[in-house]
Structure formats: structure tokens, C-alpha cells
């Protein structure tokens, strides 16, 4: 079985400083998002069960991917393809999906494409579904449990209020929620071995993509501003008799939907 895992490098959200509501992204270390790592972990678990499975890590991004991809290789991807060409810069979700789709086609036969349900920075949740559309594959999103038997794929989707169990045949595209697993830490042996795994770099031209299809030029979306959400605290204080205060508090929390859902 051939599995392709799509990963995106994002700024480490825990190390971003906010100034005047604007996130300062310069200098923040780049990491793979939690859900992307869960997608990779799931691929490696499938590989461990099904002998002969090959996992390819596919990532589009800047020059730091060259070092960053080693983490994916250490965790268990067999090889990697990096899309690091300047024309890719500034791609919106459609451009990204186009580039990934072309790369996956170029890779050849594939049975399963795994993505995170969204990237932890912009969280549009669109790349996976668009990619499935472009590749003409069945897509299953928000997956919290995944089982593969022969050619059949069974997945449990998290619909927030309920779970949905669906089945499809391979090939398919799955986007995972981070609850699907706890990604492993790579051992030192695997980290050192990763340096010897094959990594290819493909340009837009390699994929036959023109500048109008990807990158800033090919983007239908313009980012006008990027602001951290402001969290206004309600600052409600209940005073008085303890029993009464407790009841008021419970009522208020129920009204807010925090309790009694």
C-alpha cells in the first residue's frame, strides 16, 4: 500500500508573541501542526500492521522544510517530497491543493492520502477536501478512528454532537482530528537514520504548474489583516448568601452553555 501524508510547517503557536493584536511570526520556530503529526502517526501505524506499506511525506513550504522534514522521516515516513519553489509562495488553499494534487499524481499509484483536518495556524480545513476533489477521491473528514482491511476503509468521524461511522473503498483521502492518536516521539536511532532517507525537491515547473495556478498570483484570496482574537471577559461577580450565589452561578453558566449541555 502507498500512503501519502501531507504536512505543513507552521509557526510554533506557543512561541508567538502578540503585539497590538498582531501575531509576530518572524523568528518563531517552525513546526508541523498537531493534526498533521497525527496524520503521519496514523500512516506509520498502518505501515506497522500492513507489511510492504510505503509512507511518503509531502510538504509545501519554505527553505526551513529541508531540516524540518527530518522529523517526519524520523517518525517513520520512508521518503519525502518537498515543494519549495518561490512560485509556490503565497498560495491560498486552492493553489496549495493544486500543487499537492500534481505532486501526488507525479508520485504515481496511491491508496490513501492522509491530511490533518486543518492546520493549527489558519485552520481553514479546506486543503484536504479540495485535494480530494482534484484527485477525484472519496473524502472522509474529521476522522477520530481509522481501520483498514484489505481494500476497505472504515472510519469514525467526530461530528461534535455525535460520531458517524462510514466506509469506503481505497483509494481515498482522510483528514484526521488530533484525538485520533498521540503522535510518538522519534527515538535517537530513528532521528539519525532519517538523514539517510531519500528527499526530493520539486519545482512548479516539475509539476507542470504555471504561475497563475499557484502562489500569490494564482490566489483568489487576499489576506487583509491577521489579528489575534480579543477575549473580553464578562467580569460578573455574584455576592451574597452562599447558596443563593451558587445557584445564580449555576444558572448563569447554564445560560452561557458551559454547563448542562
Amino acid at each position: 500500500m502507498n500512503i501519502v501524508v501531507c504536512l505543513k510547517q507552521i509557526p510554533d503557536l506557543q512561541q508567538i508573541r502578540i503585539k497590538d493584536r498582531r501575531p509576530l511570526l518572524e523568528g518563531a520556530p517552525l513546526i508541523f501542526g498537531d493534526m498533521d503529526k497525527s496524520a503521519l502517526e496514523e500512516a506509520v501505524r498502518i505501515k506497522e500492521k500492513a507489511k510492504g506499506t510505503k509512507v511518503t511525506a509531502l510538504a509545501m513550504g519554505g527553505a526551513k522544510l529541508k531540516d524540518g522534514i527530518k522529523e517526519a522521516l524520523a517518525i517513520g515516513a520512508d521518503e519525502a517530497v518537498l515543494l519549495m519553489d518561490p512560485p509556490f509562495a503565497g498560495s491560498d488553499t486552492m493553489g496549495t491543493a493544486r500543487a499537492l494534487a500534481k505532486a501526488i499524481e507525479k508520485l504515481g499509484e496511491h491508496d490513501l492520502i492522509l491530511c490533518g483536518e486543518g492546520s493549527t495556524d489558519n485552520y481553514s480545513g479546506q486543503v484536504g477536501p479540495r485535494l480530494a476533489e482534484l484527485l477525484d477521491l472519496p473524502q472522509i473528514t474529521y476522522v477520530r478512528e481509522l481501520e483498514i482491511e484489505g481494500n476497505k476503509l472504515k472510519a469514525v468521524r467526530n461530528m461534535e454532537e455525535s460520531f458517524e461511522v462510514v466506509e469506503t473503498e481505497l483509494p481515498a483521502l482522510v483528514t484526521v482530528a488530533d484525538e485520533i492518536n498521540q503522535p510518538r516521539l522519534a527515538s535517537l536511532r530513528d532521528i539519525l537514520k532519517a538523514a539517510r532517507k531519500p528527499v526530493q525537491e520539486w519545482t512548479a515547473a516539475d509539476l507542470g504548474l504555471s504561475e497563475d495556478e499557484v502562489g500569490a498570483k494564482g490566489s483568489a484570496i487576499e489576506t487583509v489583516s491577521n489579528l489575534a482574537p480579543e477575549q473580553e471577559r464578562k467580569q460578573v461577580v455574584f455576592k451574597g448568601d452562599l447558596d443563593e450565589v451558587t445557584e445564580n452561578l449555576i444558572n448563569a453558566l447554564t445560560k452561557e452553555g458551559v454547563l448542562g449541555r
Partner: protein
Amino acid sequence: MEFRLTAEQELWKNTVREFAERELEPIARKIDEEWERIPDEIIRKMADLGIFGVTIPEEYGGMAMPGEEMQYAVITIHELARGELSMSLPVYTLLCIGWPLLLVPYGTKEAKEEILPKVASGEWFLGINTTEPGGGSDLANIVTVGRSDGDKWIVNGEKAYISGVREATERGGGHLTLFKTDPTKGYKGTTFAYFPADAPGTTYTTYRDMGRMGLSTGGFVYKNVEIPKKYILGEENKGFYVNMEGFNVARALVSAACLGGAEKCLEISREYTKQRVLFGRPLVNFEAISFEIADDYAQLELLKLMLQKGAWMIDQFYQDRSSFTKEEINRTISICKAHAPMLAVEIAKHGMMYHGASGYTKDTPLEMALRGFMSYVVGAEGGYHIQKIIIARDYIGEEAVPYRGTQKAH
């Protein structure tokens, strides 16, 4: 000149940091206070990650990156200490990964094949055993003695303040031990060899320490203990040099533990003083506080850089012994060992003061860290003053060497 970690070192650092945050931070207090030991489960997880194999070559069951062993070891201990501020687990680990660096070049093949795979797998503990009740600073005058008897020594004597006496006895493993094989001579009559903790005739006692309660400190008593000569490191009566060379490795890792712990304490203080509001502003807005944090941070960064250089020098040395003289390495490492524990104690103390009364409680890990750091100020792996003697000896010269006295200990 290159000041950056390699991509692999960076990845390893992040891996150990995440492990420490996930697995160690939540249990550090329990290790120190409740269990007074490091759980087997944690040691197994560390071994799975490869932590105990960072300095051990692949042929002996480890996964060392040849030529970068010390750099990886320093990264490992620094990150573990950030997560386990009692210092018990970092010290347990630094002993286990430090001393193999000496066993590899100086041990016999037979001994290495027996010991190293068990250390790399986390099964065995490996420690250092030099100090005696008569004094740890003055190792030329130790009195534990081994009488040569064919292919073994018959050992009698006593060691004191040894880390991991219980761990080696209960888990398996032992200690690299300095002892006299020619009692008529000073340091030129000493030999350095591995002593299995379960060698018949060996008994141990433990002390009640001030800190790092998850790792035992105790004494060994040897009564006619037979130690096979295959366990020797280097040559008979030349053990002192091997032991001293090993102290550079150990002292570098001790410094890493102190700097990693101090770094975490400083971050705790930075976050707390940003949030604590007094006199209508954040506590850190007072320069008495922010300047002190800035100074502590500067000292920390200076020492981290010095240690990075020291670790790199040791790695160069084991690749090519003409790359640096021992004196150059001694000096660099002693600067780290003299100042890292002192700085760590200061940073923990300052943090306790910023926290006010809560800093004096067990609600923060600062007091636990301070107790742990103190072990390296008072002694372990050579006290503060001894480091100064080394720096002075090498920088000033013979005139500054005080240890040529003739008075006998009583």
C-alpha cells in the same frame, strides 16, 4: 565557526524536551517526595527513546552519533533537567551516559560487551565511586586497597557519598571505582576499575540527603571483595589519569543539568513576575527585578555557550587526541562546573524571592530545584573550590598549586 545545532541535534533536543514536559514534569515532585525513586516505567520509556544510548556505540547496543557523543549528552541532560527539577533523574542519567565515554576507550572488550548493552537498554545503573570518608577532594590519599591475586584483586575499604548505591544494587550494574593497588604511592598507586555492586562482600548504607531524593547517596563497604581484572580501565597504577579525564565528562554533564534546571527556573520567574501585580504594575516592571532577571539570563547564556564549547572540545579530543590538550579541556569544563551550580542556586533563590511567601512553599518547584542544585555546589564531581584550583593551576601555574602538602590525614 558554527554556533548552531545540527538539524538532528535540534530534533533530538525538541524530542527530549517534549518527553520531559509530557512525562517528567507531572511526576517530579513525586519522585522527590513520595516515591524517593525513579519509576522503572520512566526508565524504560527513556531507554526506548535512546536516551541511555547517546554515548554508547552501536556495536555495544547504543546509538551514539560518532564524534558528537558529548554534544548529544549535554543536550539530553539539559532538557531532562528542565522537566525534572529535583535533579534526581538528570543525575541518574548523566552518570549512566557520562561514564561509558571513558569505558569505551579505556575498558577491555570483554567488560564493554558485558556492561554497555545493559546500560544502553536502561537495565543497569553505572556510576562513579571515588570519594572516601577521608575526603573527596584529596583523591591521591584514598585508602581503599586492592591486593593483586592472579586475574583478580581482593579489595578492602570503604567509599562514601556515592550516588546510586541502592540503584546499582537493586537494578544491577555498578560503579567505576578508584582504589589503591600500590598503597606506598600517592596518586601513582591508584587503579580505576568497574566494581559490580553485587560482588560478594559488598554492602551499602544510605544517607538522608537534603535534596534530589529520587536518587540514593550512600557508602559502600568492601570486605575481601573479588574484582576480576578484566574490569580495569587503562592500566594498573595509572587509574588516576583515566578517572580525572572522566571527571571532565561528568562535570560537563553536571553543568548541563544545572543550566537546564536554571533555565526552567528563570522561565518560571519571568512568567510569574509578568503576571504578579503590585503597586499597580507587573512586578517585573520594577528594575530591581527585571535587571536581576536580565543579569541571570546573561550569565546563563554565557555558561551555555562555554559548555557547548567544552562539549565540542571533548568530542574533538576523542576523535583526535592532538586536537586539544587535557589542560585546555580541564580549564573550560572547570569554568562551567564552578559556575553553573552556583548560578543555578542563585536563579532558584531569586525565583523564590520573586514568589514571596509562596516561593517558600512546595507550590512551586523552585525550592526543590535549589535543594538539587546545592549537591553540586557542596561537592559532587568535585566541589566549587576544587574547580578554582584547576583553573588557577592552569592559568596561573605551579605557584598556585596548593595540594603538595605533606601532612597526613587523621
